[in-house]
């Protein structure tokens, strides 16, 4: 069980679903949410400046569920910022793309980001979480 994970999605129902499924699966103790990439970056900024470096390791989310298609700042833009040195403290965070996209280009793009653990199709399910658990423990 993770201590904390972050779900980034603009769709409140999707976020609600995430919370419910994750809670049900006892996948994580704490579930943070952000409505778009910018909000997520702000969250990481506040984590970085308001937390003592020694505590940071415990406080930072271990896994991010990231939607691609969002207003203000989409998934790809978020990833571009998140992989810069500004966020080097968090570069061990795993990211799972959770999207409804079917554009093959998105799948290709995902290969360019080493921090992306997997590219999964909505909706989030118990089986999916089981699969991720297995994949990350290896």
């Amino acid at each position, binding site marked *: 069980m993770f201590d904390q994970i972050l779900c980034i999605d603009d769709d409140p*129902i999707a976020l609600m679903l995430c919370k419910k499924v994750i809670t049900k699966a006892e996948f994580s103790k704490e579930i943070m949410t952000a409505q778009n990439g910018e909000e997520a970056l702000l969250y990481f900024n506040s984590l970085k400046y308001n937390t003592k470096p020694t505590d940071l390791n415990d406080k930072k989310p271990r896994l991010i569920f990231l939607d691609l298609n969002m207003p203000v700042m989409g998934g790809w833009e978020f990833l571009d910022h998140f992989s810069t040195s500004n966020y080097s403290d968090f570069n061990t965070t795993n990211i799972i793309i959770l999207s*409804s996209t*079917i*554009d093959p280009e998105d799948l290709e793009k995902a290969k360019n980001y080493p921090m992306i653990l997997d590219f999964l199709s909505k*909706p989030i*399910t118990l089986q999916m979480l089981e699969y991720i658990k297995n994949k990350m423990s290896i």
Partner: protein
Amino acid sequence: MKNKTNQITLIYFVISLFLAIICHKYLLNNISNTQYYYFSFIKDLVFIILTGLLFRYILSKNDARNITVFEKLKKSNDEIKESNEKYNIVAKATSDTIWDWKIQEDNITWNKGIESVFGYKPEEVGDSSRWWFDKIHPEDSIRMSVKLYSFIEQKTEKWQDQYRFRCADATYKYVLHRSFLLKDENGRATRMIGAIQDITKQKEEEQRLKLLETVITQSRDSILITEADSHDGKIPQIVYVNPSFSKMSGYQSEEIVGKSPNIFKGPKSDSSELRKLIKAIKNKEECSIETISYTKNKEEYWVRYSMIPIFNSENEVSHWISIQRDTTEEKKLEKEKEHLIRELTQNNKDLKQFSYITSHNLRSPLSNLTGLLNLIEDIPIENEELKEILNGFNKSTHLLNETINDLVKVIIIKDNPSIQKEEVLLNEVFENVFNQLNFQIELHKPIIKLNFEKVTVLNINKAYLESILLNLLTNSIKYRSKDRKLKITISANQTEDSIILTFKDNGIGIDLERNRDKVFGLYQRFHNYPDSKGLGLYLVKSQVETMGGTISIDSEVDKGTSFTLIFKNK
């Protein structure tokens, strides 16, 4: 002759002497006066001798004159004979047919040419001028008669003409006719000598050349002929341009002959193309270029331009022939086409993007619905009616999800023309497919015969092949006949360059006479089954074709259906 003169003189002497002696004797006997006998006799003698000498002189003088006249005559006779002989030899040697027309008597004679050239036997040849005139082609005869009379009336000096002359076999030959007149001392035409030369061959050749020439003069393409050698790195000088060229370039023939085609060059001309041309001319090689040229009025036009070297019998370039075509219109069309293609590609891209966004926007709420329904599954529901409603809600959502997933597949297949292929084991693929259909296979227990001995490995996209076989198998099971046990035969065969997969069942079949065009269409359904969406075969065809294969169907109602899939081997 001299002797004859002497002879006559001698005879004269003898007779006159004899007469003188007779007279003298007679006088002696009958006249007594003898005093003058001798005197008279001597006088007679003297007279005889004198007249005899005179006679002889006159005679010999006459003779001499006769001899010169005779000799002259003989000489001219010889000359005539010789010239006659010459005439005969020439008449024989020449290919011309010669005739001689005595105008007053209207008598015309022909040499042998009339037989050897025109085929008339001597007995067929008429002896009047009318016979000759009748043989002239009707279209030429009026012109010829006008000319003939003006010639006889000596209004024209020489007469040389061409007309068609009929042969014995009723064909016509082109002849060149030359004739001259003989006149009497009053200057009246008495004879006309003519020579007719068969020029059919030349005429035919001339007409052939004329015909060939029309290719140049009438051609829509511009044709230029230039000299062999170039000066100062220019294109060789022009010696001929055809009318089309004048029309295209605006230059008249006389303005341009003797100049180099370099004058068509202008600021927008492609100088690398021109260099290519000059190089080819140097190497005496054929060459074709395309560039912008300029007319006399400095208007630009696109021209496709070829230069072909013409070699003479010594294998040296004698001329260059250049064929040019105004391609401005073509270029314009090409540009329009390019523009259109660009626009279409952009439109297509936009549409694709649109379909991705639409499908994303459809899928997002749908995935929420599915997720929420998954959560409901674990919540016990007491209310039976609510349970029923939720059940229907669940079914519809799943059906909607399936449809959208199928559509998404179609979109992605259409977008991915070059998909990755790999070596696939047929048996392995079938195992996967059967596993996915395990439940249905267990339920209906069809007889499935696989025949993959000839082909075991296919170079193909594995996911597509699986999807294709899954669809076909599902169809076979779904549309099985209720009257007999389902039997499916799948076999693979190999030809020289392709692999053929046949998929055959004994199901209810499709009425192909009514539906042949629609079988592989999108949203085409042929049986009223609740879970048929009309997508399967469309998807199958799309996938087969994306991998460069073809699919065809053969089916009979209530007998079964068979599909033939052909994939290229390489």
